């Protein structure tokens, strides 16, 4: 039985995907506004188990600069031509749609641009990740994947390869050509592939997280963290922001904890690791959620500014990534060239 999503669940859904963004993935605001029109609602959200495993499926998402996306509005049908190209290549219509990335703005893309397709509650990441070769079906090396993307001025590129890194590189180049941001589509897989090789039920998790967050938004931070099934790691003031000497995309934030502890948050386009008094407390694929301690806004990395009073909450990342060392290898901090941040000594971390 599909879950029926009423319009009033939109804030919870969006908030949930913002939490799953772990500081990245882009603000959900644009698509929230696109989905404000009640005529599009309600949506049927199908579990992978509800559908025939042979059902072909595609995954949609925006890539490139999410900040640019909020300045250059996507059209009403940004994926139409991309899906059309994929269907022509594969020679059949694809009736099911899911999200490419289960964190940030892309969590909402299937809802905004389903165009009559069956929405499947699954995605290829379960959280925000920066790179296309980190898509779960590429990590698990599912064969026959076809990728289409914008190249600008109405152009479409199609990539079919067995080397995941090529997808990242070719699509990234095409998106730069398209002006820095654009849409992309993964196709060539079925709903059955999603069962084993994707993060399933992530929209349901977003609804749960978002609902819990909104219910406790005015309460104490500890309670807020607990309502997410997570733990409050820190509450304090941002006192330093240092760019990394080796990788300009890496920022290290210093946070003066109100309890006196000294925290460090290491981030790229997403938050990746968190330390208290020199001890690692959380690391990707954990979700490290930074919240403005006063307004309770969920902050993207770019919004963490000096002297801002923030709270940091650790929430378990998607289990799928921990399923095998090979999967984990793709999302640990070391995947981004960050040394010594992989191993959280769970024995000493209080529950």
């Amino acid at each position, binding site marked *: 039985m599909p879950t029926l999503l009423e319009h009033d669940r939109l804030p919870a859904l969006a908030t949930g995907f913002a939490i799953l963004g772990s500081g990245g993935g882009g603000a959900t605001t644009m698509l929230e506004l696109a989905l404000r029109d009640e005529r599009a609602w309600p949506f049927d959200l199908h579990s992978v188990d509800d559908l025939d495993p042979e059902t072909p499926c595609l995954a949609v998402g925006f890539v490139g600069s999410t900040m640019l996306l909020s300045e250059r509005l996507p059209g009403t049908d940004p994926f139409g031509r991309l899906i059309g190209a994929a269907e022509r290549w594969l020679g059949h219509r694809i009736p099911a749609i899911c999200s490419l990335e289960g964190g940030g703005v892309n969590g909402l893309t299937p809802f905004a641009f389903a165009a009559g397709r069956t929405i499947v509650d699954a995605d290829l990441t379960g959280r925000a990740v920066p790179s296309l070769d980190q898509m779960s079906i590429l990590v698990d090396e599912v064969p026959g994947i076809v990728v289409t993307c914008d190249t600008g001025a109405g152009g479409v590129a199609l990539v079919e390869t067995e080397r995941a890194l090529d997808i990242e590189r070719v699509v990234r180049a095409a998106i730069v050509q398209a002006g820095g941001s654009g849409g992309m589509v993964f196709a060539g897989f079925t709903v059955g592939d999603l069962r084993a090789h994707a993060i399933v039920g992530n929209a349901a998790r977003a609804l749960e997280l978002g609902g819990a967050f909104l219910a406790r938004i005015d309460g104490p931070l500890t309670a807020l963290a607990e309502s997410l099934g997570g733990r409050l790691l820190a509450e304090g003031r941002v006192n330093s922001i*240092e760019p990394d000497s080796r990788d300009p995309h890496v920022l*290290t934030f210093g946070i003066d904890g109100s309890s006196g502890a*000294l925290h*460090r948050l290491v981030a790229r386009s997403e938050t990746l690791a968190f330390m208290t*008094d020199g001890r690692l407390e959380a690391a990707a694929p954990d979700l490290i959620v930074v919240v403005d301690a006063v307004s309770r806004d969920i902050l993207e990395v770019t919004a963490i500014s000096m002297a801002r009073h923030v709270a940091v909450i650790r929430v378990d990342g998607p289990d799928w990534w921990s399923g095998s060392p090979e999967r984990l290898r793709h999302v640990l901090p070391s995947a981004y060239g960050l*040394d010594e941040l992989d191993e959280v000594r769970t024995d000493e971390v209080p529950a």
Partner: protein
Amino acid sequence: MSDRLQLGALLAHPDNGGVRLVAGPADANWAGVVVETNEAALPEDGAGRLAVVTGAPPTRPWQQDALVRRTRDRGFLALAIPEADGFGAGTRALADRLGFSLLHVDRPMLLAKACWQLVEARDSLTLGYVRKVAQSIEYHAEGLADLLRHLSTSIGHGIALIDSEGVLLEAGGRLPSEVHAAIDFGPWVDLTKAGQGAAASVRVDSPSREGLRVAFFGDGLDDRQLSALAVAAEVAMPAVAARILIDEVAEVSDASVSSGVLRDFVDLRGRPDPDVERRMLERGWRTTGYHLAFRIVGRSRVDALQLLRFVTGALGRIAVDSHATTSGRGVSGWLTFAEPPEPPQVERYIAALRDLHVEARRSFNVATAVGSLASGSAGLTSSLGEASDAVRIAANRSTTGWFVRVDGLGLEQLLLAWTGNDTFVPAARSLLAPLQTGNGELLTTLSAYLDHESAVAPTAAALGLHRNTVATRITRAQELLGVDMADPEVRLALHLACRAVR
């Protein structure tokens, strides 16, 4: 506590490999030290020790945080590692928060050696210091100050020559006054700590100067370092004592040479003599220009050399070219000006010399006289002569504080002063010896008679005698002396002789 390795002692160690505190407590001390090439090789049980890691640390802030945290979690109290001075504010704050000392070290192996010396090898520390003392004695020193500089540079701590009043000479730092005050001048060796500072001092066995000590000092020295430095001080002491003696001998001989040159110059009475000129120039004494001479002599026994030492020091504070040397029982000297100074300027310099005199009187019972301003070689001679004459007057002038200036004196004063010298007075005595018979009434009468223009009546009135008595006594004196008192030359000589013996 003394068995523990102290941060202060390590910082004070001269060969500590450039260790410095980056963050954490400044008064830390540790149970020992562990040296390893990298953090991973450190033992699991830090046991309150200092960890010295010779390899470079990680560069990223979170790695540095983690390094500090892990080392501390292993039970170490401090970490010394190269490049720690590049650690960011966050990591430093973390070390502060954890009460963990983070030390930067340029050369970790040297630090390891310093730790070893402090913890386990006191004799090695002592021997190291002693060898350095020996090395510094090997080098030529210009004087005592130079020797102390050599010692301080070589040992790596400050050194001071002190007496109970204060510091006489120091090199390589300043001995804090509270440390000086705490030093016990009694024993042969003294180890003192006061506040941050500490000193190891040894009595200087010098025949010429009593109550001196030579002290090595520094901040944060621990007991081991102090006792090692005491040994070093004991070894250095004979060299210091010998140097004091050598310097004194050199000083005496230099003063006697100067004194000889000045004597020769004065004896020339302004006549040019190339040899004397050359010897004067060798001492930096120019006869050209304008000179204001002064002479300082002891009213009682005064060590001319010590007086000269004082005067030379004090002249240094008068901003004009000046020279001084010992001469007879005192010191002669002069100020030299290239251009003729204005009268107010001269007054200022005379006032400065008076200040010098007043200051000198605190330590020496002296009288001072200043000659008049004169130019050239002859002028210098005459100014020196005037000062030399006038100082005899000054020696009896308590009313002016035993200080006179020639241009403030009458001619007769000078004349008398001149007759007061060592050759004239005995001559006068023997000349007038025949008059000493009886109770000296003949001498008194003769003096009064000469004072009263060789007139009998005023003399009688002055002495309260009858005129005839006066006339008789004068005739007798004339006979006894065998002189012709009608001769004005004879009268003058007699008059001066009377004054000289009076």
